[in-house]
């Protein structure tokens, strides 16, 4: 057995848990939440609010993906399909007179139902086949949406929002949704379902041999993940007031949703959140200053992470904590 801890080993294992790590993982998020909640009161520029708004929707999608991709280990490259379905459902609902909150919920539900339709046939597939299938589904839906006249086809779809535009409303909606997403993530991780998912990720056959029903577990968490991604798409749609297939169903969206948890630390609670912030902020910088090098930067980042620190930012942090602990224990023996 190698000594290098595989990605996903719970922090603090075999050392009785580190109180510093526990402290950090509770206090830092609370501080972050408090500052995010208070931010609009300080009247920052609308651009900053917009940036954070987008980042918060990314947090929701990223945390959602991590449920199925990180906890359960089912790597989907096609989550854009849920984001897009949520966006279009919400857009159609709002134009149909449905109140926004219900519209978001509908977006989530449609995405969840779609995830069942997609998951039923595809979860039978082994690793790479599953990943490939998700790309196929996502792109097929995109092409279909480009051609369907009802939703505007390639020209896109406009939302006619009769209410006055108040940026902070959208901001807080995204914030609440993100907090909800993280809450769901923590609940799932600590629950029996979470245990089942990790068992499935590590060895699906062994999990089944111990009584875990992998099909039900995967379908359930996939629906949850899709619902979150769909809600994120819906919240975004209401803000942007215009969506088109090449925008919301774009393959690069699916890539981004996958990339964020990996950057931050796939399979952890806070990894997807960190990754979403890193991605959101870098994306903004990159698009502003190096619009031509967007994929290059993220591609290289992905390569570097895979080669040197598959655990992402959280992995780096854990290594750092471990080296601190090692150094302090060495010192105490002198």
């Amino acid at each position, binding site marked *: *057995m*190698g*000594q290098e*801890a*595989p*990605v*996903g*080993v*719970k922090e603090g*294992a*075999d050392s*009785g848990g580190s109180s510093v790590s526990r402290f950090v993982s509770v206090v830092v998020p609370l501080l972050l939440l408090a500052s995010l909640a208070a931010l609009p009161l300080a009247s920052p520029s609308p651009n900053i609010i917009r940036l954070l708004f987008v980042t918060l929707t990314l947090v929701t999608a990223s945390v959602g993906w991590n449920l199925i991709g990180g906890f359960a280990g089912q790597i989907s490259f096609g989550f854009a399909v849920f984001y897009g379905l949520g966006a279009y459902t919400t857009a159609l609902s709002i134009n149909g007179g449905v109140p926004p909150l219900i519209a978001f919920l509908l977006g989530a539900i449609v995405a969840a139902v779609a995830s069942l339709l997609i998951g039923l046939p595809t979860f039978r597939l082994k690793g790479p086949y599953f990943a490939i299938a998700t790309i196929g589904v996502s792109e097929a839906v995109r092409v279909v949406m480009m051609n369907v006249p009802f939703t505007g086809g390639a020209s896109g779809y406009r939302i006619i929002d009769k209410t006055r535009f108040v940026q902070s409303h959208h901001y807080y909606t995204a914030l609440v949704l993100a907090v909800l997403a993280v809450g769901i993530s923590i609940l799932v991780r600590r629950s*029996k379902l979470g*245990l*089942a998912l*990790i*068992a499935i990720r*590590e*060895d699906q*056959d*062994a*999990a*089944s*041999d*111990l*009584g*875990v*029903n*992998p099909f039900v577990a995967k379908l359930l968490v996939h629906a949850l993940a899709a619902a979150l991604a769909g809600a994120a798409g819906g919240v975004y749609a209401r803000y942007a007031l215009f969506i088109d297939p090449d925008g919301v169903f774009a393959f690069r969206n699916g890539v981004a949703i996958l990339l964020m948890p990996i950057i931050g630390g796939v399979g952890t609670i806070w990894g997807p959140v960190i990754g979403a912030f890193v991605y959101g902020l870098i994306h903004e910088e990159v698009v502003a200053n190096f619009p031509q090098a967007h994929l290059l930067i993220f591609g290289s980042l992905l390569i570097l992470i895979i080669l040197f620190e598959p655990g992402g930012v959280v992995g780096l942090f854990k290594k750092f904590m471990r080296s601190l602990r090692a150094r302090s224990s060495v010192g105490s023996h002198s």
Partner: protein
Amino acid sequence: MAPILKLKNLTRYFAGLAAVKDVSFDIEPGGLVGLIGPNGAGKTTLLSLIAGSLKPTSGKIEFEGENLAGAKSFRAVRAGIARTHQIPKPFRTMTVHENVEVGLRFGRHEKAAGTAKKAEEFLEMVGIAKLAQRPAFLLSVGDLKRLELARALAARPTLLLCDEICSGLTETESGLILRLLCDIRGAGTTILYVEHNLRAIMSVCDPVIVMNYGEKLAEGTPAAVQNDPSVIEAYIGKKATI
């Protein structure tokens, strides 16, 4: 008393080769049945079929009156069958404790309350309690084998399928495990035990079933089986006639 497990003409092909062919036998409740045979005899395949990890090509598996042939393994676990794996399949990133927890929470009796304490008990039984917080990927093969057993036991089976759980263990550790098996059997669990260590099998098991080339070769008490000419032939060979 009705047999707890009835196998009838159980067969499994892998691309033209019969790994298990027309195997039939019954297991009485409370039995500690040994299953032996040369390498490649089909013993592990047979266990996999009974546990539901593999689907039979044909034949019947009747467990407590219910036909389980073709049922997936998680259904078999709910019915009361649990297995260990010849090559351990731990959940590598989980701790030893969490590995057992999976068996505990998804096994036959699913209780949320008191889960933590009970997991320790199973670790204690197999002798790896001090490894409880260690990530499974750090364990040695012998410890992994014992974890396999603890996990399977945590699923509270009425029929336990053991696949070479003593390989990789020292003489003392094996003795501990064998005593444990007898204790479990005494407490009411039926056990089907595949093992290469013939001395171990012969000392605790009754009856013993012998397999070779996918077929059942012999069945009987340890003494009877040891003296069976076809069994001797399978292991050692026939006396040469010149």
